[in-house]
């Protein structure tokens, strides 16, 4: 306790400050606090800006000038977004692929990590090199594409899950964590006649909840955010698109319009499409509503998981 307080007291003075409570020190602190405040604002504001635009009437937002608060508040953008024919299927796919990937990936990767903890396993170094080599050299995009086509994974839900089940790096994180669990626990269980699978399920996994949570978070976020797979490998089945791919589709359509007409105010295409969709909603305001819907789950969940992913990063960085 005493030591901690000392640590707290001195750790700050080593960094950017200039001496003890002197004037330059105070100035340094003020600059430091201000810069960090600016960073916080720069991080948060883009999300906030999208949020207020999603709550503002689309046609009105076209006039510009909305910076801090919505001008004409409406939920019409979200109502229109929810009327999009693909919205429910895409969020359903996003949730499904995230859940299935998290479960399968955590199970298989941790099992691999556990198997690698066995230091005296005959052939161990060869097996580990077999896994490790793939982090140095891989087939690349096109050979992967051809293999997916041969396996019938294109335009198939399992393309989202199967190619991402294993990650050598995550397996190493699991292994590193498993090493920190006293081996005597496993030994005594073994003496009591526990099978290896049972040891893994009853002892190793329950003791590894923090690292499981961290890996689950990384895999889950990666799946939720992935638009590439949907766009390029599931191009013919829009009903199998996840929400991120749908958002990409909506945005790239809009970006194309901008390219056609970089100088004038509102392009004809946009006006045309705006009329088709609704009187007050524009593709732009709809885009913001989609963006908020896609981002909201992450923004809402992640502060609660923060301590886990910090742990995950740190375990990953520990040298063997």
């Amino acid at each position: 306790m005493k030591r901690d307080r000392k640590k707290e007291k001195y750790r700050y003075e080593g960094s950017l400050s200039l001496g003890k409570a002197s004037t330059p020190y105070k100035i340094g602190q003020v600059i430091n606090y201000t810069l960090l405040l600016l960073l916080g604002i720069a991080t948060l504001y883009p999300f906030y800006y999208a949020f207020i635009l999603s709550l503002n009437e689309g046609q009105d937002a076209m006039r510009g000038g909305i910076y801090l608060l919505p001008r004409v508040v409406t939920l019409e953008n979200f109502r229109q977004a929810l009327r999009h024919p693909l919205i429910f299927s895409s969020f359903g796919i996003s949730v499904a692929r995230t859940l299935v990937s998290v479960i399968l990936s955590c199970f298989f990767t941790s099992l691999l990590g556990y198997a690698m903890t066995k230091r005296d396993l005959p052939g161990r170094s060869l097996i580990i090199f077999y896994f490790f080599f793939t982090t140095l050299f891989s087939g690349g995009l096109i050979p992967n594409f051809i293999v997916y086509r041969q396996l019938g994974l294109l335009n198939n839900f399992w393309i989202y899950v199967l190619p991402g089940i294993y990650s050598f790096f995550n397996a190493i994180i699991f292994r590193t964590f498993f090493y920190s669990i006293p081996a005597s626990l496993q030994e005594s269980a073994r003496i009591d006649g526990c099978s290896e699978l049972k040891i893994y399920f009853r002892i190793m996994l329950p003791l590894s909840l923090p690292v499981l949570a961290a890996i689950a978070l990384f895999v889950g976020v990666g799946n939720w955010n992935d638009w590439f797979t949907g766009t390029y490998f599931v191009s013919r089945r829009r009903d199998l698109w996840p929400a991120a791919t749908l958002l990409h589709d909506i945005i790239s359509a809009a970006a194309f319009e901008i390219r056609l007409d970089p100088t004038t105010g509102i392009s004809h295409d946009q006006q045309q499409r705006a009329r088709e969709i609704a009187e007050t909603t524009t593709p732009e305001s709809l885009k913001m509503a989609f963006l908020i819907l896609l981002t909201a789950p992450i923004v809402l969940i992640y502060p609660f998981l923060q301590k886990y992913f910090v742990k995950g990063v740190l375990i990953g960085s520990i040298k063997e």
Partner: protein
Amino acid sequence: MRLKRRRGNNSTLFLKRKYSFRGVMRRYGAFYLFLLPALAWFAIFQYYPITGIQIAFKNYRFSTGIWGSDWVGLRYFRDFLSDPHFYNILRNSLVISFSKLFFLFPAPIILALMLNSVKNVPYRRTVQTLSYLPHFVSWVVVAALIHKFFSPTIGLINDLRIDRGLDTIYYLGRRELFLPFVVLSDMWKGIGFGSIIYLAALSGIDPNLYEAANIDGANGFRKLLHITLPGIKPTIGILFILNLGGLLANNMEQILLLQTPNTYEVSEILETFILRRGLRMNQFDYATAVGLFRSVVSLFLIVVVNKVSRKLADVSLW
């Protein structure tokens, strides 16, 4: 992060003397069983595609398949090297990754030092929590936000310019702005998350060192130079090598989402070129050849970097 292969491991030999095959299986069978799905998965999703690289030397046709297509030797490599875009693409790949290394590598270190000198704990926690957030948001969202801010028709920045009676600018169509966009957006997304590891290293520095320095009358700058930086030097070293190793591996997603046809000249990199030629124009064989070129160069880089760093700093990835 440091993956170390153990050399001179002769436990296999030792065990052979002690156990029969049956004995090994009884003792380790369960572990081999645990490894089995992983061995199979890596064979299908990692090693099997590697055999597909042979189409870089073949005239690939869907009807004849990977193995049945005719060999054409190094034709695609010659084509690529004489492609009018070859120089641009290679230059862009290198310029973007070196700029990222130069600007994005120090950024989290500086942020960690800044956060570390904040005394007010709730303030520090809040800034930390906020700064990690963009890491967890999809690039497609980040790109949408950038388009929203900088678009000429509906963008925030141009709104402000209009308010001041200035002309609108199509920022994302400007060639000279593409590199700043790539570097800054990556910094915005990654700076907070990257600082986690340095913050941990900073909190591991022995506080007694600072106390001793205070007694010796060292000022803040000297403490930074002689205690703080040496304290996190190993972490900086390992992460630097990791970054160097991935030098030729650019973030395809980011480039793909930020490039516009106006900026192709400075934004087209090896990855986006492979994607365009391979999946959009169906030149599988040519794109695979370009991919192989990229893989070989980056493998070479990793091996060299690892060798050099092991010699000079005794830090290595394996």
